[in-house]
């Protein structure tokens, strides 16, 4: 990772869209991004646990980000995308609407999480960046993974 003139290493954030909002996760913990996979439902599990995925022999728990954020469910005809991340607790896959670019972010452009962002989001966020076209909400992967555990 190159350093800018001020000697601060920019972070590389993999971004994705859920609803109208743009979210991101540090690219170093993203194992891969794949299209919708066949999922096995887990009856009795909380709604955020959408199911289990077989990824080349590895069983991943799929967490629906929309549920985590309390948003409406995705329309039926819109299959989700999988963002497979490696956390300390588990290997999980986060279900999102669309994958966007990997951005190089200057840490000088970090903003305070605005008050307008609801509490439940704020706990999951690591930081917020102001982009030309809006806000990027960077997720804290551990808190997302633990979200379902704590239900």
């Amino acid at each position: 990772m190159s350093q800018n003139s001020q000697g601060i290493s920019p972070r590389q954030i993999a971004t994705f869209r859920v609803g109208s909002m743009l979210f991101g996760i540090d690219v170093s913990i993203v194992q891969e991004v794949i299209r919708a996979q066949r999922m096995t439902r887990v009856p009795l599990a909380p709604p955020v646990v959408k199911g289990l995925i077989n990824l080349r022999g590895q069983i991943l728990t799929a967490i629906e980000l929309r549920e985590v954020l309390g948003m409406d469910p995705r329309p039926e005809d819109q299959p989700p995308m999988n963002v497979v991340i490696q956390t300390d607790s588990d290997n999980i896959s986060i279900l999102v609407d669309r994958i966007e670019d990997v951005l190089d972010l200057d840490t000088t452009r970090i903003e305070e999480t605005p008050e307008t962002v609801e509490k439940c989001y704020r706990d999951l966020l690591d930081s917020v960046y102001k982009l030309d076209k809006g806000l990027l909400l960077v997720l804290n992967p551990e808190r997302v993974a633990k979200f379902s555990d704590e239900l």
Partner: protein
Amino acid sequence: MSDDQEEMIRDFLVESFENLDRMDQELMILEKEPNNMAVLNSVFRTIHTIKGTCGFFAFENLESLGHIGENLLDSLRAGKKKLTPEITNVLLKMSDAIRELLQLIESTGSSGDNQYEDLKFLLHHHNSTGSAEAAPAELTLEEQFAAIVAEREAMEQSQENLEEATEQRSEEVAVASTQPQEAVEPEVHESSEEHGADKGAAEAKTDRKSDANLEAQKAQESGGLQDSSIRVDVQLLDSLMNLVGELVLARNQLRQITSTSQDQTFQSTFQRLNIITTELQEGVMKTRMQPIASVWGKFPRVVRDVAQQCSKKVRLVMEGKETELDKTIIEAIKDPLVHIVRNAIDHGIELPANRKKAGKNEEGTLTLRAYHEGGYVMIEIQDDGGGLRIEKIKKKAVERGLISQEKANTMVDQEVFKLIFQPGFSTADQVTNLSGRGVGMDVVRINIEKIGGALEVDSEEGKGTKLKIRIPLTLAIVPALIVSCEEDAFAIPQVSLIELVRLDEERFDTDLENIKGATFYRLRGNLLPLVYLSEELRINMTRPQHRERKKGKARVINIVVVRADTQVFGLVVDDVHDTEEIVVKSLSKSIKGLGVYAGATIMGDGRVALILDVMNLAQRAQVINERVGAQEEENASVTSVSMTEEIPLLIVELGNNEPAAIPLDSVKRLEEFSASKVEFLNGRSVVQYRGGILDLIDLRTVHGYAGQGSSQDDDACQVIVLNDNNRQVGFMVRGIMDVVKHSIDTSRTASRHGSKGAAIIQDRIMDVLDLSMMAL
């Protein structure tokens, strides 16, 4: 400390622990056969090796202790001393002390400061009384230390030196030896004599060199034995097991594809792959299997020590030493087994005097038995002691508040036995040093259940007690039955599986019973509670259609008869598929916490399936404990408790709120008729039933209560059809209340005709009716 040295120390520790264990066993043998030279030599060599090797690592106290012990052993070997029980005890003490030091090294890296002066004195004492050696060269401790320190400074402690020493026969430093080491090293050159500290130094050196030579010799002698086995890191074996697991899954997936392919080459290549995979799987599983002898090895010593401490005489019999278990299981049962053995000797077997009084042999017998049965390993610990004292246990339990007095009065023997596994329970008047190390029987039970095992107790007062442990052999690759509910597939481990039943609609009426909202299936005369998987998992919130008996739809229900511990029940699923060998993969915390899933697996077609936890399902559906009745096991292969005194009872309401209990096995069916259907024939009430006539007896009036029997025509009557092959008789009751499992007190004189006895159920006294008698 360098890595190399760390590794060497690790190796030294592993080997030394093993050697010490073996030495303990050998000392046991020597006690019985004091003149067994081969064993005595082996013991000597063990100490010699430990002593010699630890000189490299600055474990001074260990070396000096070993040295004195070695002297004693040498005298024994040379016939200068005779092995007496006191000497054996001292040697065992030395073994313990060495073990302690090794453990200290393991945890802290150094052997500490304990010089074990008392022990050394004892060893010295037993060696020196009456010994008639020529030129005794016993060094004082200071001299030995000085020697060792000097030695260490002189030589670099490294492995090359050891090899060098092994190869080279001559030394730069002159060596003198007046110690009787004749059997050890005939090739030591004695070039010149020196005295004092040098002698010590030389001696220490000689020891080390002779050690090396000894090792080389030993290696040559037992070359064959050493070559045939290899030490392998357990972690490596674990990762091999994982890989094999993945291979099994991949093979399963491949199998699905080949079943549809016509390609001959493909088929035959797959066949080969299949065979290889199966054998590889078996082989890798075997690598982790160890004979139970590795755990039992130390029991002779434990039994001896405990018996001595309790002043009892105990003979140990071990059967089935070669029975193999997975290493993880062996680790888990080590401590529980030791505790059980200690308990048996401490509390089970009586003092010799008491045994004699009771007409028994003064020496008690403790039998350890291990064998394979089904998919399990069975371990039995049996003693011929005094047995479990039922009254004493009951009393203690009531005292401790574990059970109420009433419960104590109605408990069956088996239930009383199980009380000893409750936490905080001990009928020992004092918790002795042996059996009170915070490892109670409850911890034993928990540890065994942790590895999926089960404990059973059987005892006869005056005769003895038998503890039976059942542990599954299954590891991470298990055979399982795949079932489905709607489109979801689930796996049920075969070890829980008893049988499969497919019920056609036409048999719904005859074979299914509905009691108070719970459905039962009549399996060869017994009522099996049914659990609907779709309901438990809330997959389909609407009740399965067959229960509403929708006409026009041919329905079939699939019942998977499973066992959870000792409880048998039927799991109703939509479809039953194949049996597959599945690799159990663990679930994330949130899903694991649900309890109902034991893990997940990837099936042959690549789909993920959840593995059901049968025990948890049973508990959820409340099939276990209390609620439902008629759980009788067909097979006694799991020698489960046969609750002969507690039976399932159907609670009914007769008339005027009076309840009565009817043994469930006398009930054939429960029917409901509208009062208008009741007809009169020759003075009897009857109803048309299944193409025949059912005699009716009105229990609502029979017991002398104001006849409310002539109810309105539309009223539905609850009728209990008697289970009697000769005739059809139905008993009318006001209502059906519940089904419970309870014991009957047959001592109470029947208050009325047709009563078998009485029972207090849910705080109400009621008669238990004998329908057959009443039907006469």
